[in-house]
């Protein structure tokens, strides 16, 4: 019997083909791993955003706002009608956002975007009061923590919007500069 076996060229060709397939499979696995990692981070950032927003909104609705004091850079004290105070503070270096006693950390690949007007401030805030009829909302409180993704630069802001009638809260203006904490 004539045993032909494999020639060097055949072996080389099959080796190249198997290498190409292995390379393609390896790339697919790497892509998949990246995607899973990306999904995990997207879920994590959604949890961070949702947790902070839900906690602040819950307090604003249930306990009712009295006023907001600025307590330094990236720091707001939210005062409620029961005169309790809860602090919202962003630490851009540690990548944490803390509301009351609860702190949340941004997942890797996300960062806090500073306020363009003040580079040390990572919370933007404003309060707009308009001449709405009595017993209707006349004030919109807007507290925003800008969050971006390093990779795609997409927006993942925490945008806290609360509307209320400031004539029922003792007319205390929002965002009073606290003497002990200035942002500069």
């Amino acid at each position, binding site marked *: *019997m*004539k*045993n*032909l076996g*494999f020639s060097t060229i*055949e072996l080389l*060709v*099959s080796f190249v*083909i198997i290498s190409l*397939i292995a390379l*393609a*499979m390896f790339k*697919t696995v790497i*892509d*998949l791993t990246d*995607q899973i990692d990306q*999904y995990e981070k*997207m879920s994590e950032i*959604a949890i961070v*955003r*949702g947790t902070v*927003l*839900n906690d602040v*909104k819950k307090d604003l609705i249930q306990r009712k706002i009295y006023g907001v004091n600025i307590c330094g850079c990236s720091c707001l004290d939210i005062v409620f009608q029961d005169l309790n105070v809860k602090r919202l503070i962003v630490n851009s270096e540690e990548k944490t956002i803390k509301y009351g006693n609860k702190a949340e950390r941004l997942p890797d690949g996300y960062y806090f975007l500073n306020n363009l007007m003040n580079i040390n401030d990572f919370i933007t805030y404003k309060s*707009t009061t*308009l*001449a*709405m009829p009595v017993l*209707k*909302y*006349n004030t*919109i409180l*807007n507290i925003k923590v800008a969050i971006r993704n390093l990779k795609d630069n*997409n*927006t*993942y*802001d*925490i*945008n806290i*919007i*609360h*509307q209320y009638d400031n004539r029922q809260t003792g007319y205390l203006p929002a965002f009073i500069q606290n003497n002990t904490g200035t942002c500069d």
Partner: protein
Amino acid sequence: MKKINNQGFFLIETIAIVGIVITILVMLYSQISITQKNYQLNSKYNTSETIHAAKTIQEYFNQEGITSLISDLSTNPILDITSYEFDTTGYYEQLIDDLDINKIYFSVYDISPVINNYITYNIDSGMLRFLRSLRVSDTSSSYRIIMSFSNGEYSSLILN
């Protein structure tokens, strides 16, 4: 002894196996791409952020009343109310601006007529995809607030 011919099979076998493997890889990759695309889209639908925004708009609607909007729905199944004049103080405009809302619609609950005639109602492709993702199951519901945001997120809230 019978002579066995081993020649002529190597190339065909290799091509067949490579072909099968490539087909499996392509199928796998396309499925993963579809899943990835769907995940990315769905992660932008009805996030806690946008649901809170929708609730804020609903609070405003409860305050202002929506009887005029409901009567307008008799002629159109969907209304673009982004620039609707609810009040003369600019409060609604300010609210839309603060909530980073790109477009806001008021529609009937069953949005299938809108999906079928999306060109007539100037519905863009992103909004159309979102509308298609909405389920129509609760027959007791009457209206919807549908919103798109400047960061590409979408939200819908059912009103009874």
